[in-house]
């Protein structure tokens, strides 16, 4: 497990990333803000899952299982969305 210092640094990073999403929509074009927000959201999720949920320290198979669940969501959403294009 990481130490309090690492947890604190990640907390600060998460706050900054959260603010970043808000700022993007204030100062960038919609498309750029959309793309930037997706990148920041993915970064935040990876930080929380990796360090706060300690996914990095768990057996890799747990990460694969969670990745499979996320893949299922993308599969359903993207395929359903494509079906009406």
């Amino acid at each position, binding site marked *: 497990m990481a130490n309090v210092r690492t947890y604190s640094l990640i907390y600060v990073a998460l706050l900054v990333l959260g603010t970043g999403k808000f700022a993007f929509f204030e100062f960038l074009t919609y498309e750029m803000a959309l793309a930037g927000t997706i990148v920041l959201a993915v970064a935040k999720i990876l930080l929380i899952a990796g360090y706060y949920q300690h996914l990095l320290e768990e057996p890799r198979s747990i990460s694969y299982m969670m990745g499979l669940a996320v893949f299922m969501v993308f599969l359903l959403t993207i395929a359903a969305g494509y079906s*009406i294009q």
Partner: protein
Amino acid sequence: MSDLPPMTSVKRWLVTTNHKDVGILYIVTALFFLLFGGVMALAFRAHLWEAGGIGLLSGNEFNQAVTAHGLLMVFWFLSPIASGFANYFVPLQIGAKDLAFPRMNALSYWFYLFSGVLIAFSFFQGGAYAGGWTMYAPLNVPTYTPAMEATTGGNATILGLMLFVISITIGTVNFLVTIHRSRAEGLGLWNMPIFTWSWLLTVWMMLFAFAALLAALLLLATDRVFLTQYFAAEQGSSLLWAHLFWFFGHPEVYIVFFPALGIMFETFQTFTGRRLVGRKWVIIAMVLVAVQSFLVWMHHMYLTTINLEIKTLMMATTIGISLPFDLMVFALIYTMVKGRVRFTTPFLFSLGALVLFILGGITGVFLGAVVLDYEFRGTYWVVAHFHYVMVSGVTALVAGLYYWWPKISGKMYSETLGKINFAVYFVGFNLLYFPQFLAWETPRRVFHFAEGAEFYHQLSTVGAFVFGASFLIMFATFAHSYLYGPRAPDNPWEYSRTAEWAVPSPPPLENWTGRPSYRTGNLEFVEDSKAATDGGVAQGEAAAAEVASTHEEDHPDHASIWPLGIGISTFLFFFGLTGITPYIAEFAQGTETPPEGFVGMAGEPNIVYPILTVVGIVAMGYTLFKFGVEQFDVPEMAVAERWPFGGVGNTKFGVWVFLASDVVVFGAVIGAFIFMRLHTGWSDWTTVPFASWPGLLNTYVLLTSSFTVILALVFAERQSKKGLLGAMGATLLLALTFMGVKAYEYGVKFQQGEFWWTGIEYSIYFVTTGLHALHVIFGVLIALFMIYRIVSVDAYLEDHRPVEFFGLYWHFVDIVWVILFPLFYLM
């Protein structure tokens, strides 16, 4: 409570958590629902004796009977009876003493039973749901079904199904943890008995598929009870339902069929005296089907407005999924060819299942082709094909009943009666379903048909009664066996190979006297204490199996009343919810902006329902609390094969599996938002929140709570009670702050006259953020419980794992908000 009363005592069956007892409860209850659904079928088949019906049922009663028959057979009979077999035999086959979480196993059963009771009650609450088992939108919401109305009974059907799915989810988590982490030493995945393999793949499919159904039912229930507009919107609603339902629905076919297939494999091996031909390839084929099952769902949607490219793609994947099945069918046939067949009753049923499945599979290929499906969709061809597939599964499950009856009951059955049973069953089945292929032009779910089809329908009705009679023969055979049958030996079948046949019939409470081990390649029972006394090393080291810190000799508990208590209180809560719609309607009409097209609400408000809802919530709180504080010892197996999930404890793995399921539930709800927004036009979407700052504020609040939860874990590891209490208290306060901001946000919308029924954008906003808020509320309740435990018994200082488990859940809630914030407040 830890002592288990004798099997003759009623109390035993109310408190038991033992896997074999729960297995028997599942099997008996599933057979009851088979009769329930069967009587429905006989009623509407009799009605169909003449075109237009013979007057036995009214139009609405016919619809209710057809719908209830489908729902009961698919959900309350097929999967649960397989679950009963799995409960009884999977732990035995893998060398475990019980499932990983016995109390959760009992809870899963009680939820199943009470979900069925909700269905039974629904008939007396103004009529059960009558829109077909697929519950297609918009027929599933009141606005578009004024003739049927949103009866309280209709709500009970939907909520009953929801409770059933919750039961399935609990069971799924339990079996995944058990099979992956409680296999006897030396029992690698490849060598697992094939029934257990089929069940393992079944529960993996269940984990993701049922989560999608749970999401769909959540949205449907909010439409029906709280008047949201998911499936009542003018555009996109029916496609949304079809996507969500069939993303679950097609894997469900294999979820239902795989356990039956596993039984076929087991019985073919036993009664041909030969190992399954191409066993490893069969396992690979099953894995392929499990994967492919999630890639074909839109072949149920060829007649909708989805584009031709995706239809063509789905046609290709549908043809693709038949290929692994071909391999499995040939493996079964070659096993017969290579072996020496003994035509016992279980084998006859399994062979019959194979024949019927081949017919069902071939006729299904027609429906997989886009052009042919345009002609066949919605006709009796589908009905016949579907039943040839699903009821061939039933045929194999009956084979399982005969195969394992001696093990469960300790008595042998009469082969003569069993063979008569098979003959009547097989004739009845084909007389019932084959004429439906010939009468294929009949529209399904309708009691009017062309004059020329009358003969086929009459044959089918006669077949239905013959088929029904075969089940009476089956029950009589088992009753005769139970009363007069000779005692069954440990292994009545000459060539059975799996571990359940190595113990007495019926097996003792904890299954084994020694520890089962396959280290030498054969099943052996090891006395660990003796080996240690003799100076032997721990068995697991030699076999690279993981040795847990707990000890095998710890005596596990087998009895708890609280699963039943939680089951009853949850039932009261759900039953109460069924009658809430009129109150919501009254509230909506009292606002300045009631929903449009306000048709078909349930009758007069009945105060009993809100009272039951509140009583249910209070009772749930009490029983869950008692469940939480109860001492219930379930030692992990000291020596076990755990690949690929070694290095993580049972409970933590269980939490991860649950979270994987929750990812799909939330993902499907968020996916519903994206789908509807795409359908509307991305930039035409109305943003509902009045400003983005509350979302940003809540982002900070939730991120800070994630930080305090991780601090709680640090303090628990340092055994600092003050620090742990402070961090948990801060988490609690932050969660309440989050809810406060949310309440303010909702309040502003209400003041502006905007509610969840105002439009699809509003429904999606309130339901999605509401579902997240519900997760926060669950977190608050867990945090409160943990704080109580820290204060009262200094909990989590010696063993900090529960704090980590809570953290896993809480961080997940935070992750969901990471997605919801930009989706609803910024985009």
